[in-house]
């Protein structure tokens, strides 16, 4: 609904309309995002009696503790390792799935159908999706049984489950869709005539990919990256279940802190993670001007 505006009143009206447009978002973000973040921020500066009691005040003790701990570094390294691996695999798979759907499936109905197929894993809960890996990857799981049966291995492979590999597999399975959707979206807006022109001008498939498809899908890749990175860095459940408790992440560590009522250190870790994520996201946004790409 475009607000009708007479030239004389344009400015205040447009202003009002602008506010109205953002108000739903503000109404959601302020109470459900800004306010909780502020509470967490405040709690991170409070002192605690160690039994869940918070003493309002201002101390940097929690930050000093978090930043001085070798544990924090190890946790970040572990989390970043998972994030990087997940990102690479979701990007490669997501990109090529999107590419296939956009450029190789001629029938639009079929493309949409296949696209929907990508969402099938999301028809059940996260927990079930993860548990389902156990009969497949376990010591007595299908893969090990098959390999044993074929005589490829003598001992079941233990690395398939309850390992870093298992964590990455679960993340990739879960998050590839978050790459497919935005990349699909930006690829679909590439004018096919452009590709045809490139072919006519003698460009190779690799050149088309390198000079046209990838640059023009940049915004989708950036958006997908933001989704994947922020979800992996903010997750603890997949790590916990798929590593069989053998690994930890930044969030799992401060979740345990909450479990033993160490609110200020948990809050300080959460604030630190938020800052790290903000830095990563702004880095991505600096590399790719998503706004410009989207409105192009």
């Amino acid at each position: 609904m475009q607000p009708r505006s007479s030239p004389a009143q344009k400015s205040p009206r447009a202003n009002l309309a602008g506010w109205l447009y953002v108000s739903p978002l503000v109404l959601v973000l302020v109470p459900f995002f800004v306010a909780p973040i502020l509470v967490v921020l405040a709690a991170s500066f409070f002192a605690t009696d160690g039994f869940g009691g918070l003493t309002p005040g201002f101390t940097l003790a929690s930050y000093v503790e978090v930043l001085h701990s070798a544990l924090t570094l190890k946790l970040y390294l572990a989390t970043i390792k998972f994030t990087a691996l997940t990102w690479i695999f979701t990007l490669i798979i997501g990109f090529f799935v999107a590419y296939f759907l956009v450029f190789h499936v001629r029938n639009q109905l079929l493309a949409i159908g296949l696209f929907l197929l990508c969402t099938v894993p999301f028809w059940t809960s996260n927990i079930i999706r993860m548990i389902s890996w156990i009969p497949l990857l376990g010591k007595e799981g299908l893969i090990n049984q098959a390999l044993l049966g074929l005589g490829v291995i003598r001992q079941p492979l233990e690395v398939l489950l309850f390992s870093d590999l298992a964590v990455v597999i679960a993340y990739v399975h879960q998050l590839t869709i978050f790459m497919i959707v935005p990349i699909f979206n930006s690829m679909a807006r590439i004018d096919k005539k452009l590709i045809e022109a490139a072919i006519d001008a003698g460009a190779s498939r690799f050149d088309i990919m390198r000079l046209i498809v990838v640059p023009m899908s940049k915004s989708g890749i950036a958006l997908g990256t933001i989704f994947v990175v922020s979800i992996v860095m903010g997750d603890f459940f997949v790590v916990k279940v798929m590593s069989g408790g053998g690994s930890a992440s930044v969030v799992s560590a401060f979740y345990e802190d909450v479990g033993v009522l160490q609110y200020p250190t948990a809050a300080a870790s959460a604030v630190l993670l938020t800052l790290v994520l903000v830095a990563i996201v702004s880095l991505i946004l600096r590399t790719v001007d998503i706004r410009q790409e989207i409105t192009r």
Partner: protein
Amino acid sequence: MSDGAKETSTSNPAGTEARSSKKLSRRMLLKRAAAVAGAAAGSDAIRGFPTIWAQEIKDIELRHVGVSYSVVKAIGDQAAKDLGFKVTMQNLDTSAAINRFISQPNTVDIADLEGWQAKLAAKRGVIQGIEVKKIKEFDNILPIFTKGEIDGHKIPRQGISPYEAMYISKPDSTDLHDGVTEWATFLPQVYNADSIGYRPDLVGHEVTEWKDLIDPKFKGKAAILDVPAIGIMDAALCFESAGLIKYGNKGNMTKEEIDFTCNKLIELKKQGQFRATWTTFDQSVQLMAAGEVVIQSMWSPAVAAVRVKEIPCVYAPVNVKNGKEGYRGWCNGMGLMKHLSGKKLDAAYEYLNWYLSGWQGGFVGRYGYYSPVPSTAKKFLTAAEWDFWYDGQPAPEVINDPYGVPMEKAGTKRDGGSFLDRVKNISCWNTLMDEAAYMNKRWNDFKVA
């Protein structure tokens, strides 16, 4: 049954009387109340309140919140049926539960607390004292909980024993009181003794000591519980059993003891001892049933759940010997949140009394947990069930689980013997250490190592 029911309703005035005339000894009154309750035994007993009471309470809703193995929907449904008001059971994991009790106390009516949580809840002032004399079966609760002893055997106080966390001196006290008083922080409702579960076919010998869990023989085939506060106690039991260390108090370690324990765990992890760690009941069942591990710290019903899948699994009887070994005990009880008052508080007391009146005891007994009032639970178990679950006798007939599914063949004997054999061999209780923050940090070192 209606006669009995009427009698129960008259036991309420008995309670009122108790408050007004202090001359009567509490014990006498309790005896009277117990006798009345005894006469009215049966799940239907409490149904027959006078109509006015029934009118007044039908709009009441009690929210009983706690962990899934303790706060069970089927029990709440039965309570609602018997009591005439609404009971909602809500499940959270241990840490989410204590966080909710502390940060949103008004969203909970009955908090399901472990001993250490009761201590915390009292300290934070979110619960009110339970008036002991309003609890009809209080004198029939096993003295393990009410007096810290049983048959002359003192219950160890490593960790936070239920007895230790049970009393406060005044209804609004925030500090625990050592010794019996008129006010309880929580009312024990279900408990057990945890130990190790193992595959007898793959382990090859009977396990009676914790050190088998860290035996290099089971490298890559062992698992440990990953709830830091209690996982570290299972580890401590292992290390003590292997003669590596002697703890002052496994349930309240010093920083040095925590360091030793976590460093040792990290060493074991690097050697590949642990296939996994587990957090939930289902995970432990999965690990064992899928052949991932052959030995792990485990809960009794989880062992039963593995056996239901026709996979042999034994719950190790780790009786105390030479000052080592023993079970890690836990007990969940119900606490009354501070905001309860008036009719809702009355209803909450009715609920607590219903809980100890036997139906629930029978129900939890059928999956291997125990009621603190075995005398009432017995009335809701068949003789065969009682023999099997409580007495440690060979099952005279097929034993069903609470939902009627056959669970154990006739002739099977429960691992660990009778419940008295087990509880007398508890050597430490679930806890939250004074050094919990430090312990948690070191535990995360173990996780990320």
